[in-house]
């Protein structure tokens, strides 16, 4: 009986800590975790629309894109000062070793989410959603072997160029940028 209650409480506590992984962090580390989490929520809100699981809502996409944009670029860079305490932080030291590249990715995220806000009105691209159809990577599935074999990726398109693309194609560029920065500069909890 009692064991059960304790177990249940322990499980609940475990769930609670995974939900707020930044528990224990303070100061600027906590601040950037909150910013990242706000971006995660924005991505989570847009995902079902981009997957065609719920009705597409251009205004909601624009607003979510702007939320991410507000946390990207200079705002993000300023939350990673080299001299601040890194206690409870999951950022890798490599981030400060090649800070220029980190900053480039933060700026790229800003450009891409500005592009996404502009592209929101375009709606979804292919009938399949995702990588089919006319998105930036589409040429790689077509005749262009050079891009498929690792040539130009279109990661650095301007917001204006992105504005002409289907929203789901721009959205995927955004998510790949989150991931491109997490790959070298963030470790996983546990």
């Amino acid at each position, binding site marked *: 009986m009692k064991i059960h209650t304790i177990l249940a409480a322990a499980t609940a506590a475990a769930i609670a800590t995974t939900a707020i992984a930044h528990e224990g962090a303070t100061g600027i580390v906590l601040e950037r975790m909150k910013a990242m989490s706000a971006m995660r929520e924005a991505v989570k809100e847009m995902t079902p629309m981009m997957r065609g699981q719920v009705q597409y809502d251009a205004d909601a996409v624009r607003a979510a894109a702007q939320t991410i944009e507000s946390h990207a670029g200079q705002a993000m860079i300023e939350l990673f000062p080299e001299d601040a305490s890194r206690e409870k932080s999951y950022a890798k030291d490599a981030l400060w070793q090649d800070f220029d590249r980190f900053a480039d990715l933060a700026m790229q995220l800003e450009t891409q989410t500005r592009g996404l806000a502009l592209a929101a009105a375009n709606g979804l691209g292919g009938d399949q959603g995702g990588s089919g159809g006319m998105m930036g990577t589409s040429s*790689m599935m077509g005749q262009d072997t*050079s891009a498929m074999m*690792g040539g130009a990726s279109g990661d650095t398109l301007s917001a204006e160029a992105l504005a002409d693309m289907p929203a789901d194609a721009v959205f*995927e560029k955004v998510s*790949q940028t*989150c991931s491109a920065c*997490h*790959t070298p500069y963030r*470790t996983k909890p546990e």
Partner: protein
Amino acid sequence: MRVLTLVSAAAGLAALGLVAVIAWPVGSVPAPIELTGDSQRGAYLARAGGCIACHTNWDEGGPPLAGGAPLETRFGTFHPPNLTMSASAGMGNWTITQFARAVRQGVSPDGASYYPTFPYAFYANLTDQDIADLWAAFQTVPAVDTPAPDNEVPFPFDQRWGLKLWRAAFLPAPRTEPVEGKSDPWNQGRWLVEGVTHCGACHTPRNIAGARVMAQKFTGADALPGQDKSPAITPDALAENGWTRDDLAYALQSGIMPNGDTFGGGMGEVVRHGTSFLTDADRRAIATYLLDEDG
């Protein structure tokens, strides 16, 4: 006296054994491949197989397939070589047969064994047509004449002949053959997951010799290159973490997990340079097989 003779006999034998191991030929010379390759399909396989991900230094903006970012492992630092058609720095002077032997058997043109950091074990079941397609795709890549740096592997792991013993003890054959009674997508997923997309290279734990522990397949691994850790991707673990087939297929396309967070670590690269280029059907096949659902 006697002891000394014994010792020197043993030493002599050991030396002989060593010479034998060093001279022992590994792999086999494949029959010549005379098929015409389809470069588009080859490029697709090169995405699925991670050749482009690993052999391109994306962080430094390096040219495609001209040599990858260093892989730091507990055996040393490996530099994925230049695979362009440069005669001096890449595969310009290779024959397709040498290429086939390298990719399917992990044996170099001069008969040396490659380190398993190159996941050739997963490519063993590629057909002659697959190899011809890959070879055709590599011909389209602009040649780069700068060789990749040499591996930095300390003694004793720098002794390539030791890899022959490793191969004899640990080289598992990929289990890509179709299973009767399973759906086509499931079997296609099996071909991809167990073979060319080499999910097990990072998601199956390794023993002290760096060989995969097959009894613990897909239960997650630590000590991946760059101190990376991977979670379990067994059907149970995936179900427990709330993954559905559609979520998984979408994550392999976009890098987005069900909670809105995105992949980091090696998985980010697998998706960005690999699975995001696959067809929806193939990503769903991977998810179908991993979750062991019917298609």
